[in-house]
Structures are given as structure tokens and as C-alpha cells.
């Protein structure tokens, strides 16, 4: 299949025609916005060198591009280092409790379709204590942009292993090595059939902002995993993906409609379908052009995207980055508000007096 043959996104009319126009319900401003407009007056207090600084700067400088009214943007977070994020943005913000940000944001987004709601969470917050809320927000397709800062460690509680830490991780709570197999957040999100699933890197501002833009424009739930370095408790976790010497050999850049190839020179490799039903990495030279898998982010079936998400097994040998999946289906707020509108259209706006006097009544006196 070539890129020309790929089906267009939004094959079915969904979201009241809002597909691909994820920001259509959110009031816009003509006023010129700058990075400064989105900086709050609060002093940023992450450890010097933390990857969160780069993400904050990238978000602050990307938000003006959306052209949205600042008062219609809300950042909701849970608990953890990353969850301080809302304090540093001059939008509406809600720093909540551990793991619950997707649930709080669900109530907000479901009742306010005119808001651009962002959830800032980390690997512990989203995948341990808040795992349930995350998968349900994704399956419901609540209109949220969930940014999952994955540093593969617990930072705020000072260095215990997290649900994305590699097996055998030596930490304060696992002096003999951690025993549990980590979650792959992308696989998890695809398993929950999230509509938009992507991975990017704290230090790659251009890629990060590109992914954020697509997430923002996607109406429904977007999950963006951001590899983020914790220079105190898990320094260098993503060095092989950042070091110019190794970076290009292991990073698999996913671009919709493009054949999936990576690596340089003799080491150039390609991804093709494997006989076992998954995908596999082979030497580029060993396969014909036609055999190379062309990335289709809009495929309604998440199976291939899931297979791609497994390429980093084991041990980060090759790591896909970019948009795994971007398909449209009705967002939860749209469906919920449609029911309210339908009920109102069918029976008229509710009258309290009629409600109270409904059923069998009798009069005395």
C-alpha cells in the first residue's frame, strides 16, 4: 500500500462534523499572543536540569500558535513533579490529587465543550494510582489532551521505581531489583483504543510541538507520552535516544503515509509485517520496497499500531517516536451533550412544576 492509497481520516461523519477540527468549539482570539502571555507569575521550582523545564518552555511557546482564548484553556494535573505544571501557565488550572486528574478533567470537559482541557501527568500518577481513570478516559474518548511525562521513576517521593521502570531496577524500595514488568504506555493506550496516541521527547522541541499541535487539533482523547529525563533519580534514561551517536540508529520515526525505515548507511533498517502477525525489523537491504510497512495512523484497527508499539521490546533496541494512531470517533462530551439536546428537543425544556406534579396526584382542601 502506498501513501496515495491510504484512506483519509474521518471516514464516517462523527462529532457533528468536527472531525479534524478539534478546536472548532473553542473560542478564538484575534489578539496576538506570545509565550509571555502564557507564563504565570509563579517561580518554577523543578530541580535544575529537569526535563520538565524543556516541556514547559515548549508548551508555553506552542500555545500561542493555537490562537485560542487563554481563558478557555485549562490544565489539570494530579500529583508528582510534572503535576506542578499548571501553576506555571497563565491559564485556568487545577492541581488535584494523585491519579485523579483524568477523572476530574472528564467532568470538566464533558460539561464544557468550549474548553481546551489538558491533563498533565506522570508515569506513576497515570499508570499506577490513576491507571483506571486513564484507560476509561481513553475508551470514552473524552475531549482531553493527556500529556504523560514518563521518566520511568518516582521523583517527588524521592526515587522509588515506577510502573514504567525496567525489570531489575535498583531503587530505594527495590534494593535487590524490581520484579514487575513495566507498562508500555503506548501499548496500554492503544489497548484502550485511544483515538490519538503519540510519543515524543522532552529535548526535541520541534517534534514535541508538532505532536502537541496534532493532539490539540484532535477532538477526543489524545495520549502523548513524553520521554522526560529525571536528572536526579534516573539520569540518562533516554540518552541512547538523544546521543547523536546512537539516536538515529534506534529511533523509528513514524510518519503517516511513509514507509517505516530508520538507521543510516549499512545499518539502515526497515519494518515489515512478520509471519507471526506482528511487525519485525529487518535490514533495509534485505527487503524490497513493497515489503516495507507504510505507516497508516488513520487505520481504524489499532492492531498494527499496537504491533509497532512493541518494537522497543526488549530494552529499547529500537523505539518508535511520533503519532502511532490518529483516528476519529465521537467524543464523549459531544455524545453527552447531544443526549441533553435530544431530550430537550423531544420534550421541551424541563419545567420544575411539571416534574413535581408528575405521576398520580390528589388534592386536599
Amino acid at each position, binding site marked *: 500500500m502506498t501513501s496515495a492509497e491510504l484512506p483519509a481520516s474521518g471516514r464516517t461523519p462523527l462529532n457533528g462534523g468536527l472531525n479534524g477540527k478539534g478546536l472548532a468549539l473553542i473560542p478564538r482570539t484575534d489578539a496576538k499572543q506570545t509565550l509571555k502571555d502564557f507564563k504565570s507569575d509563579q517561580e518554577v521550582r523543578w530541580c535544575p536540569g529537569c526535563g520538565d523545564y524543556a516541556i514547559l518552555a515548549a508548551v508555553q511557546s506552542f500555545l500561542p500558535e493555537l490562537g485560542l482564548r487563554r481563558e478557555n484553556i485549562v490544565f489539570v494535573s494530579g500529583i508528582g513533579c510534572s503535576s506542578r505544571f499548571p501553576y506555571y501557565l497563565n491559564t*485556568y488550572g487545577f492541581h488535584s490529587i494523585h491519579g485523579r486528574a483524568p477523572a476530574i478533567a472528564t467532568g470538566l470537559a464533558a*460539561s*464544557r465543550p468550549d474548553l481546551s482541557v489538558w491533563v498533565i501527568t506522570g508515569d506513576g500518577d497515570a499508570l499506577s494510582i490513576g491507571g483506571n481513570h486513564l484507560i476509561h478516559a481513553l475508551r470514552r474518548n473524552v475531549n482531553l489532551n493527556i500529556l504523560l511525562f514518563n521518566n520511568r521513576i518516582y521523583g517527588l517521593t524521592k526515587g522509588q521505581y515506577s510502573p514504567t521502570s525496567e525489570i531489575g531496577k535498583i531503587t530505594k524500595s527495590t534494593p535487590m531489583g524490581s520484579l514487575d514488568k513495566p507498562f508500555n504506555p503506548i501499548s496500554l493506550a492503544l489497548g484502550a483504543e485511544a483515538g490519538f496516541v503519540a510519543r515524543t521527547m522532552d529535548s526535541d522541541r520541534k517534534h514535541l510541538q508538532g505532536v502537541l499541535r496534532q493532539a490539540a487539533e484532535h477532538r477526543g482523547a489524545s495520549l502523548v507520552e513524553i520521554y522526560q529525563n529525571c536528572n536526579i533519580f534516573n539520569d540518562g534514561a533516554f540518552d541512547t535516544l538523544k546521543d547523536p551517536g546512537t539516536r538515529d540508529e534506534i529511533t523509528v520515526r513514524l510518519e503517516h503515509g511513509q514507509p517505516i525505515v530508520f538507521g543510516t548507511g549499512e545499518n539502515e533498517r526497515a519494518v515489515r509485517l512478520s509471519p507471526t502477525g506482528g511487525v519485525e525489523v529487518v535490514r533495509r537491504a534485505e527487503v524490497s520496497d513493497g515489503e516495507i510497512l507504510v505507516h497508516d495512523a488513520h487505520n481504524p484497527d489499532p492492531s498494527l499500531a499496537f504491533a509497532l508499539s512493541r518494537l522497543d521490546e526488549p530494552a529499547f533496541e529500537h523505539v518508535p517516536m511520533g503519532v502511532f494512531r490518529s483516528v476519529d470517533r465521537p467524543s464523549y462530551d459531544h455524545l453527552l451533550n447531544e443526549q441533553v439536546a435530544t*431530550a430537550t428537543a423531544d420534550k*421541551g425544556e*424541563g419545567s420544575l412544576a411539571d416534574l413535581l406534579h408528575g405521576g398520580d396526584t*390528589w388534592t386536599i382542601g
Partner: protein
Amino acid sequence: MTKQVQQLDRVIIRFAGDSGDGMQLTGDRFTAETAQFGNDLSTLPNFPAEIRAPAGTLPGVSSFQLHFADHDILTPGDAPNVLVAMNPAALKANIGDLPRGADIIANTDEFTKRNLQKVGYPGNPLEDDSLKEWRLHAVPLTSLTVRALDGFDISKKDAERAKNMFALGLLSWMYNRPTEGTIKFLESKFARKPEIAKANIAAFQAGWNYGETTESFSVSYEIKPATLAPGVYRNISGNQALSYGLIAGAVQAKLPLFLGSYPITPASDILHELSKHKRFGIRTFQAEDEIAGVAAALGASFGGSLGVTTTSGPGVALKAETVGLAVTTELPLIVVDVQRAGPSTGMPTKTEQTDLLMAMYGRNGESPVPVLAPATPSDCFTMAVEAARIAVKYRTPVMLLSDGYLANGSEPWRIPEVSELPDITAPFTTEPNGEDGTYLPFKRDPETLARPWAVPGTPGLEHRIGGIEKADGTGNISYDPDNHDRMVRLRQAKIDGIDVPDLTVDDPGGDARVLVLGWGSTYGPIAAAARRVRAAGHKVAQAHLRHLNPLPANTGEVLRSYDKVLLPEINLGQLAMLLRARFLVDVISYNRVRGLPFKAEELAAVIGEVIESD
């Protein structure tokens, strides 16, 4: 045959059968007929948590008790005058509550050897003289029904299932109930199965005719309509009244209602009810768990909705951290706890008042919340509106403590005019409130101490709130020790200062020396007991708390003006502990925790003992 008609002032009927026998429906219909007739009434459904326990067994018995009268009554009654027993299990499970001389209507068809064995009857009690102290009417309800439906194009099973309508028809004849409502009800319930509708109506009418013609029933009874205050009435259960109260609260506050909820007995009916009323702009969200239910409600409140979550005790335990977040972010939120027997899963379909201390204190930190408790099923409406008023006016989560008895019990309710309902609007903040056009999210109203409520979408008032301690005024993160002390005290002072009506005392003679105090669903039995005590020539004052936090300002004064204060609670003395600590009054507790409401007779005896002691 001329039948005798006897006048009665009140009757208590209990319908009991297998959980598949449709006893709740039968009871509901008899209640509707009785309400339509104009009697005062009070009901007590009692059903197992199992949806279908093994047929014919004691755990599978479901019952519905109805007390109706020609005067105002307060409880579903202590002991039935009539027991309808659809099978041996229903007889065995209920005979202990039946006073000698009461009527028993037993379905003989179900008293088979096998069914008798299932519940351990050695012989058939309908045939030996073990029931000789009662008035037994042995009626083959099932076979009479099947015979009456001969010729209908329905299965034998469907014909047998209509036996509850036969029983309803018979009881409707016995107590001269109007029948049109039930016929209309059956037509609409089985609108899609007209043959089943006709068969059920025929069974209902056959039951009526059976009463009129058979010699086994020589007397029918008349209970004149009650003289209640003038107005338009309907019968309403606590859960329905609470749902309507939440809707009314949102309407009167001019806010969209957002319900985040997870199904749990006995609160689920509120979720069901509210989900039917989307045309009021109500959004109902069945969450993935209890925590998500309250969290979504709080998120919606942040966005300018009236956030509500409904649950029972185990759910409140799970929601505690989020309620704490609502306390510290000072956002409106209503947490409805329809209490049930605990701890842990406890007895989900049975009632209790054991969540008071959890509602008051079940959170980390100093985390004060207003706590309200309706006194009767229809009072659930009033107190839900009151919860909305307090939540919105003071920007605070409010705990509303209903219970299983109120939730499922019903009574006639004088429908209020919408114009009688309070205007509880508390507008959003839309303008800066600080110097230089800044917005201070924690700058308080000097009178109520409530903070402003600026919702996303309001230009210029962008701000951040959260669970970390906030600096007074600005709301910025603050670890300053004195600021924390100040904020802890401000949050407490705000709740302490909520305007709550004074506690009123019912003391007809004005010189009683004993006060019987209650809260929540014990109102009916306590008031009925007080009546009995007074009728017997003793003096007792009665007062009932519907605001538990803050307490009415005159509570201490009331308690101290009696020699003795008796406090019956369906717990081990939770309110008593609070009152003793707060007012140093030696409150006398009376506690039974059986999963059932108090009986008026039982409480009358306890009040009598307290009056007579020393």
C-alpha cells in the same frame, strides 16, 4: 351474600413472598391506590440483596409493609394486622412479627411438601392448628389465578405469575381501594404485550371478585381519607424526593447539574432517576468507580456546574480524598450518602445511621464539611435543596445523609409550589477583585467567608487552584506556617458560620423534663413513640436535628434545658458522642443496630423508662 363493612382508623399490611413473586410491585400498587384514596400512609420495603435467591428459601423472601390511616401517621407500623404470605418461606420469615389475632392470607398452592421442607416446616401449618391464634385465610391464589386466566393466549407460567395481581385485587376489595389506577398502570406497563396486560387486569379483577363472593372473607374494611393540610399531594419515596430536590436545587441555583456516580445499593435509584431528566440540562455520568464519580463531579463544579455524587457508605470511604480536595479548593459539591448497614459491604439493603462520624471526620487534615440529614422520605426533597443552597452559597462540599429506610420508604408529599422554593443563586465572579485588576481566588466574602467562584472562560480571571495549601487571598502555593494556621481556621470558621435554622422543640405542655432527640430517619418512630407516651399521660419533649454540621445555634441551650436527653440512634451512639463532647451534656443513648428502623412501641417503652427512672 351481604358483606359486612367495618370501619377502621388504621391498618398495617405486609405483603411477603419469594423475591420473584412481585411483592414490591404489589406493595407499590396498593400504596398508589391508598394514596389516591387519600389516606395518610408510610411504607417499608424489605428485600434481599440477592437478585434472585433460590426460590422458596428464607433468604429469598421479599416483603413490603404499608401502614395507612384516616389520620396523620409517622411510621410504616410496628406489627402487621394482615400478612399476605405467598409461600411457606414468607410465612415462616414473618410470622414472628405478627400479633395474635392478625389476619393471614396464605397461598395454599405453594404449601407443598417440598416447599415446606425447604424452610423446615415438619408439617403443613395451614392444616395443623399451629396458626390457630391467628385468623387464617387459606386461599389457593395460584390455581385461582390460572383458572381465571383460562382462555387467555398466554403461557401457564405467565398465568401463574399474575397471582400477585390476584392477591392485590383481593386486598383491594378487603380495604375498598380504588382500582382504576392499577388497571391504567397495568395497561401502560404491558403496553407492548396487550395479552399479558389483559391477563393481569383479569387476575386483579378476579381477586376482587373472589373477595366479594367467597365465604372465607366475610368482612371488608373502610378507612376514611385522612385530613391532611390542604394542597396537592403525591406519594413519593426518599430516593425520588432526593432526586427531585437535586433538580430543584440546580434550577433554583440556575446551574446545570452534573452527576458523577457509580452504581451502589441503595443509592442507584437516584442515578437512574436523574438520568431520565436530561431536558433540565442534567448530565449524568456513570463513572468507572466511586472516586471517578466524585472527581468528575468536582471537575464539573470547577467548570461552573452543580457537581453531585451519590453513593452509600463504602463509596463515601473511597471518595474521601476528593471531598478533601473540594474542601480545600472551596468548590460547591454535593455528596449524597444513602447509608446502609456496615462495616465493609455489611448488609446492602438494610438501613443504618452509622456514617455520621465518617461524614464529619472521615478525611485527612482539618477538613470540615456541612452535614445534613433528612427526617422523612419527602424531607429528602427539602434537604437536597438545602444542600444545594449551602454548597453554592459557601462554596463547599456538603454531605447529605439519607439512609436505606428513607430511600425506599414512601409517604404522601404535599407538592411545594415552585414559588415557595428559595432562590439560591450565587453568581459567578466575572470581574477582578484585587488591586491593579488582579484576581484573588481566595479573597473571601467578609460575611459568609465564601471565596469567589470564577469559572474557566472568564477572561482576565485565569487562576490556579489545587490541593496544596494556598496563601490567603492569592491562592498561590504557600508553606508558611502562620498562613496554614490561618487557612485551617478560616475554612473551619466558614463552615461554623453557615446559617442554619434554630432547633425547634415539640413539647405540647411546655413543661416536659425529658427531651427525646433524634436525627435522620428515626424521626417517624421517635415522633410516634412520643405520641404514645403522651397519650399514656406522660410528658416528653421532642426535637429533631436535620443540620448536623454546623448544629443549630440553640442546640446547647435546648439540651441544657431538660433534666434528661434521650437520643435513639441506629448506631452505637455517634451523635451522642458529638453532643457530649461539644456541650458536656450527659446524653442518654439508646442504640439498636439491626438494619431495621426502630419500632414506635420499642421507643415508647424506652422513653417511658427514662421518664420513670429516679
